[in-house]
């Protein structure tokens, strides 16, 4: 027992603030639900949050289909979370996952449709590849701009998100619009769809996502490239001194980030949606930021954070049907989790957690991104 505790201690010390943030978010959201219940037709109900959370849990894990839905919703968030997370490791805040996701989804949809009649073993991998490469190319742009001109990636990626949505709308309307539909969309992907492994919708993309978690973890922890990425993120001056090329690493990391975001779009396209249409939302893009922060940019942390967010998505319908608690409660919980992570002092107070000796580089990247005058480490004082 004690040995176990000792072995888990380092993991727990990293995970405790995120875990407590989740607990606290659920608690605060429960209060919101109770208070707002007084203004609904069913009337004041102090037990409503318990019923709602119970159905949320049952919807996400209470049946085989529920678990499948959770995994299906979690898979693109794993890719997206990794995309944001690897950026944060290098000190980059890639807000452009939304745009890279769309570009990847579009490329996968078009390639998949073109190969709709080809065998799955041909069409699916090529469509995945197209999605990943398109995302990588779209991630390379802000990476290159940052490396060459110093243009801040937060600004450029926000712009590129809009550009992606508009460009793809035009592309669907004027280049690849499929005939026979009442609204503009791409053609069916046919055989290029990700094979269903089990049940109704448990597709192969989930295996890809989990594999990606371990590949990225391996790259970050075990390879020289990962060491370079982490060093550039932790201390760019030291990285330069050590003979690394921060400019190159920056551009490369954004490209890898875009690749992962593009793959998120590709599996969502080939595993779930099946066609690209203007108006497709990329909530994955923004949820990915939350997933990466909740997972502390650690691939394993991201795996669990994505599963949690996936469970929210999978469990929400049952919660709505059976308790009439609106889905916005999920938004509230998700927002609160991030709020408590950012303001971890609150969490530490409530749960009496001691502050870490090492500051969290990732959160500093995110919060630091908003001030133009943030000095590089070591120049202060």
């Amino acid at each position: 027992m004690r040995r176990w505790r000792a072995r888990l201690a380092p993991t727990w010390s990293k995970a405790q603030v995120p875990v407590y943030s989740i607990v606290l978010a659920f608690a605060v959201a429960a209060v919101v639900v109770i208070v707002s219940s007084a203004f609904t037709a069913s009337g004041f109900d102090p037990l409503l949050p318990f019923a709602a959370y119970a159905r949320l849990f049952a919807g996400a894990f209470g049946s085989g289909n529920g678990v499948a839905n959770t995994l299906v919703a979690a898979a693109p968030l794993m890719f997206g979370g990794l995309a944001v997370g690897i950026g944060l490791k290098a000190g980059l805040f890639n807000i452009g996952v939304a745009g890279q996701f769309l570009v990847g989804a579009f490329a996968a949809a078009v390639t998949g449709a073109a190969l709709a009649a080809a065998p799955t073993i041909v069409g699916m991998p090529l469509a995945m590849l197209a999605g990943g490469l398109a995302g990588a190319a779209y991630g390379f742009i802000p990476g290159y701009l940052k490396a060459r001109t110093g243009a801040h990636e937060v600004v450029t990626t926000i712009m590129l998100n809009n550009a992606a949505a508009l460009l793809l709308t035009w592309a669907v309307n004027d280049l690849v619009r499929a005939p026979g539909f009442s609204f503009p969309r791409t053609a069916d992907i046919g055989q290029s769809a990700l094979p269903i492994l089990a049940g109704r919708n448990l597709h192969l993309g989930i295996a890809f996502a989990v594999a990606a978690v371990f590949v990225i973890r391996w790259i970050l922890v075990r390879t020289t490239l990962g060491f370079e990425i982490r060093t550039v993120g932790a201390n760019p001056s030291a990285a330069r001194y050590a003979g690394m090329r921060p400019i190159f690493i920056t551009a490369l990391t954004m490209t890898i980030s875009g690749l992962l975001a593009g793959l998120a779009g590709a599996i969502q396209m080939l595993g779930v949606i099946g066609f690209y249409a203007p108006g497709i939302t990329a909530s994955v893009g923004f949820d990915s930021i939350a997933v990466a922060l909740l997972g502390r940019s650690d691939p394993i942390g991201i795996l669990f954070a994505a599963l949690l967010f996936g469970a929210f998505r999978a469990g929400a319908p049952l919660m709505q049907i059976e308790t009439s608690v609106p889905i916005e409660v999920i938004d509230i919980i998700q927002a609160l989790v991030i709020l408590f992570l950012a303001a971890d002092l609150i969490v530490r107070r409530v749960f009496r957690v001691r502050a870490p000796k090492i500051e969290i580089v990732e959160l500093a990247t995110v919060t630091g991104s908003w001030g133009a005058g943030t000095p590089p480490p070591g120049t202060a004082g």
Partner: protein
Amino acid sequence: MSDKTSVLEMRGITKRFPGGTLANDAIDLELGEREIHALLGENGAGKTTLMNILYGLVTPDEGEIRIDGTPVAIQGPADAIARGIGMVHQHFMLVPVLSVAENVVLGQEITGVGGVLDMRTAERRIRELAERLGFSVDPGTRVNQLSLGQQQRVEILKAIYRGARILVLDEPTAVLTPQETREIFGVLRRLRQDGTSIIFISHKLDEVLEIADRITVIRRGKVVGSRKPAQTNKDELAELMVGRAVSLRVDRGQSHPGDVTLEVVGLRALDDRRHEILQGVDLNVRAGEIVGIAGVGGNGQDELVECVVGLRKPNAGAIRLAGRDITRQSVEGRRDLGIAYVPADRQRFGLVLPYLLPDNFVLTRYGEVPYAGGLGGFVRQDQPIRNEAGRLAKEFDVRASSLDVAASTLSGGNQQKVVVAREFRHDLRVLVVDQPTRGLDVGSIEFIHKQVIERRDAGVAVLLVSAELDEVLDLSDRILVMYRGRIVGTFAAAEAQREKVGLLMATGEART
């Protein structure tokens, strides 16, 4: 006992940290009125803990604090301030974007009708106070436009403004140039005249002997002695501090210079503000020779070093290693050719503070065999990295509870030893060391100096830059003086008199 009356007494102060470290072990300290009392000790001796107890930041396990003879309980900084204790931390606590006046009044704002900030009154008072202390500062200037020395004076101003009668300065000279140090000493003497009592924390022997009325030495949490400057000397204080006899003289021995290894010709380069800071530098360093660059900070030494190691691109001129032009080589390429570099700012360049020690020990060699291998050198090899880290930590006496701690948890001396251990390899040809001992205690300084000389004797060409003229004079076989981006003089070690070199540093001309 002091011949003056005591304003502050600390009796039997004991503090045990979780894990059993005894940071303070029954420390007694007494501060007289109008006294500058130096607290001397190595890094980690317990000086800062003791002062944090006085300032209410740490609660002692045992002991008593008396102010003006009355026992007091200090619960926090607010208490301490209310009792007339002011503290200037090692790392300044100023808000960079606020003005001097705003920083000084922060938390003690003067408000007029309806809570409106009355900055004009505050600025007037600050100006008066500064004049009384013997320096001028424009209260409207933003703090981030001030030099470190000026910022420190603002910190002092802030403490005095809040009515401090007892002023604690934690390593106030660590980040200052010699001139700034001299200026701050002037301020401290004025304060003493005005009736302020001062605790001055340091590990620099010269400074302590110059400024203090009394010196208390702490080692491993205990008071090991108290002296008046007139009754002691550097050697005795160093021995008290370290616990053994320390050689403060560097035994340089005889050098045996060989062929020219490093050659710099007509080097010109811009600084970060795009001014031409290097205006044609020529120098060479022979194998088995230490060449020291003396100069007042900001005359191009840092940029010269950066050009030599590949971090800065020169506009003109050439750098050669054993006759081979390396001007266009990358940092990594030069390192492969045998150039090592100990940067001036170890926290910014030399280390990645959140990394554990093994990663820091191989920071500049992470891509080399055997630390990387497999898949074309792509995979890091943990065991060789750990082995090397263990070996270096032992050889260079890096004191850490284990290898698996972040570099940020080490003391400054141990951090520097990590950098030195990593860079001082045996297969070197050129060793560039910039401020190798800045902020270190005497034990670490002695150790690092020995290592530099050992490398020289092994045939390495050493280029040394230091703001401490004594260090340059003690270590170098040849001394070059740098002034406004040029080398303005060369001295053989035997001919280099302190005054001559100092004059050349200050004026760029050698008048007789």
